[in-house]
């Protein structure tokens, strides 16, 4: 459950990250590939060297989707329906990996926001990312 204050906080954070979407997204992905090498198995078709054109573009896409989700938390399932279908029928990424990327997103945000990543912000973001991941996995079966 997210309170109204938490939802507003999430929008503020993602608004702040949107201008540096490429950097945030690419860093989170790099952290995930480095810390959890098994996640690279889903990216054999892309150049995942640090800050490659493809990593920056992919990272940007992920952050934009998160931003969109944060703006529409009460209608997450509808907003993310196309992404949901994409993950279920095309990508078929094992949902355990969503937790790994979510964790690396938290680490990336913590690095950038330092003390601004308060316990309340941390809790709200963790809840939001879990909800987001749950919607992505919703159509799997």
């Amino acid at each position, binding site marked *: 459950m997210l309170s109204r204050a938490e939802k507003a906080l999430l929008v503020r954070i993602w608004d702040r990250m949107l201008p540096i979407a490429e950097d945030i997204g690419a*860093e989170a992905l*790099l*952290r995930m590939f*480095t*810390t959890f090498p098994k996640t690279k198995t889903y990216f054999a078709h892309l150049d995942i060297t*640090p800050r490659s054109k493809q990593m920056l573009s992919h990272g940007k896409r992920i952050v934009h989707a998160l931003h969109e989700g944060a703006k529409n938390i009460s209608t997450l399932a509808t907003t993310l329906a196309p992404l949901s279908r994409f993950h279920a029928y095309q990508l078929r990424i094992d949902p355990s990996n969503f937790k790994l990327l979510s*964790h690396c997103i*938290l*680490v*990336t945000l*913590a*690095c*950038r*926001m*330092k*003390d601004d*990543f308060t*316990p*309340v912000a*941390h*809790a709200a973001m*963790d809840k939001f990312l879990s909800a987001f991941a749950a919607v992505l996995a919703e159509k799997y079966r």
Partner: protein
Amino acid sequence: MVDWTDAERSAIAAMWGKINPDEIGPQALARLLVVSPWTQRHFSTFGNLSNSAAIMGNAKVAAHGKTVMNGLDRAVKNLDDIKGVYSDLSVMHSEKLHVDPDNFRNLADIITVCVAMKFGPSGFSPDAQEAWQKFLSVVVSALGRQYH
């Protein structure tokens, strides 16, 4: 036996050298209780945990956070036998404290976030994160090993 590369050994030692357990420990344990409130089930005697501010300011939480974080020192000093070092601690967490080992992973992830906040993107690079998280996952595994 865990395979540590030389790079990982030095990254872990370097991280531990920079970390102040008395600072990070309290923050991490308090955050665990805020981010995952169900973990409060183990701390019913700790007094006021009713909201984020109360938890972050709670002296018993802070004291216990220091104890837990300083406990990592033995593992850093004995990378090649973390299993052995924590055998008794594992038994205690299972038989006396009845703590679900999933909580160890949970706390490890939150410690990692606190370390990231402290050192930023260059101080806590992806390679440093890899070594640090590998270290914590060995600790987590050792603490869960004596459960049956």
